[in-house]
């Protein structure tokens, strides 16, 4: 069976600067994939290019068999790709519930509001307060929760644990596990290595704008030396 997302020889530019130099990767249905790499190697750019926010791009992005090259940004979600940006993107002029209800439902199979409130009870408690009055952890939950409503097939997360307390990180890990049980496909960029090793099925290692390694979680112990070298940790 063809993978849900297939990226081949993807190049991307920010104005003059060439950031992605031929990224190749696949994400199978139901997999949780983590992209590792140092700062500035193009991890966030990879995600933003796949979503279609960065339009100066070449190469192939095939999602559920469809070529995404000419799909306008506002149609990406309707094809089944949901995005949680690094800065979370909670709107300050919208209440928590308005934030939650903002992304249009694009397909059946998303969570209902009740299910979401069950998974994130805090959000229900604070549903009428402005979105940015939530704590950082709650904002991250909200950013994930609002995509879960929409019924997308692939959830793209950019550093979901950045700057959060360990207890919240653990909570996000549980949420991702729950999603996996429901069959959600997840692609995330993560700096928190321990967190990543708990949730991911497979890793991509990125350096200088391309993927330099690709291995399942089972091979992780044998790759530690190389990871130390490339990640500099």
């Amino acid at each position, binding site marked *: 069976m063809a993978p849900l997302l297939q990226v081949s020889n993807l190049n991307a530019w920010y104005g003059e600067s060439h950031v992605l130099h031929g990224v190749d990767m696949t994400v199978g249905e139901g997999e949780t994939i983590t992209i590792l790499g140092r700062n500035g190697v193009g991890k966030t750019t990879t995600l933003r290019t796949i979503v279609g*926010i960065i339009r100066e791009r070449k190469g192939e992005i095939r999602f559920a068999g469809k070529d995404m090259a000419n799909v306008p*940004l*506002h149609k990406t*979600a309707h094809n089944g790709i949901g995005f949680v*940006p690094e800065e979370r993107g909670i709107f300050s002029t919208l209440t928590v519930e308005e934030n939650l*209800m*903002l*992304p*249009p439902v*694009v397909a059946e199979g998303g969570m209902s509001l009740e299910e979401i409130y069950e998974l994130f009870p805090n959000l229900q408690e604070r549903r009428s307060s402005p979105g940015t009055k939530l704590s950082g952890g709650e904002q991250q939950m909200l950013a994930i929760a609002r995509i879960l409503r929409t019924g997308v097939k692939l959830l793209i997360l950019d550093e979901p644990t950045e700057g959060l307390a360990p207890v919240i990180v653990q909570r996000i890990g549980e949420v991702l596990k729950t999603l996996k049980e429901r069959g959600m496909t997840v692609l995330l960029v993560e700096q928190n290595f321990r967190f990543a090793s708990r949730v991911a099925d497979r890793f991509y290692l990125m350096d200088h704008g391309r993927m330099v390694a690709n291995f399942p979680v089972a091979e992780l112990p044998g790759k530690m030396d190389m990871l130390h070298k490339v990640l500099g940790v």
Partner: protein
Amino acid sequence: MTMIFGIPLQAFLGQLLIGLINGSFYALLSLGLAVIFGLLRVINFAHGAQYMLGAFAAMLMLEYFGINYWVALILGPIVVGLFGAVIERTMLSRLYNLDPLYGLLFTFGLALAIEGTFRYLYGAAGQPYSVPAQLAGGTNLGFMFLPIYRGWVVVVSLVACIGTWLLIEKTKLGAYLRAATENPVLVQAFGVNVPVLLTLTYGLGAALAAFAGVLAAPIYQVSPLMGSNIIIVVFAVVVVGGMGSIMGAILTGYMLGIAEGLTKVFYPEASNIVIFVIMAIVLLLRPAGLFGRDA
């Protein structure tokens, strides 16, 4: 005769009413400016011209098609709104990635072109548009005589202002607008067609201006110059209120209208500059404006 601050009560209330009416127009227009600016980051200089188009639409519809005031009140804004949407789609949308001043200059040119065209076609002199029969006449409130049409204008523009506020603060469409004001790219990545949203917003703003224009037609003369006269005052209103808040724009509009009316009672010579003076004072004391959140 009852006196208030040494002024006959009658004159005082009369000017208060005029102030309230002017304030209604300021509120409607600055509201539209704020809505457009919030999302498009464009100061719509053509707002005055669109207001004038509304008044002309009412007059011309009556003259050529016998369309009455009530229908014009709906149809006029729709026509002008569509015109605005076409302008946004074909031209204004090309300027979004540039300095906001280009949007100002473009809409300034648009205003000149529209105004010039109507001057060319209909002359600079004002033309009357009569008050609809249902709202003709007036009523004696005991302490003053209230022309019914003027009362109607105050009420209906208040309703329009509150309606717009509710639309933006309380509806799904409003949530899209507010979210797109903060982060258009993300809203688009969520699957909302933001370019269409922008077109809608500009059309809505233009329609609001035209609505004010239709309301104004029976009160002021319908003239090609009516727009540019009012838009500069509305700019001052917007500087005073700041464009960060819809409610702020509405309140400032009414406040300054009333301030202008009262100045006519106490010091008539200054009545057409009082709003500018207030603007200067506000700039000294609160440079960001009374309700300003933006720099």
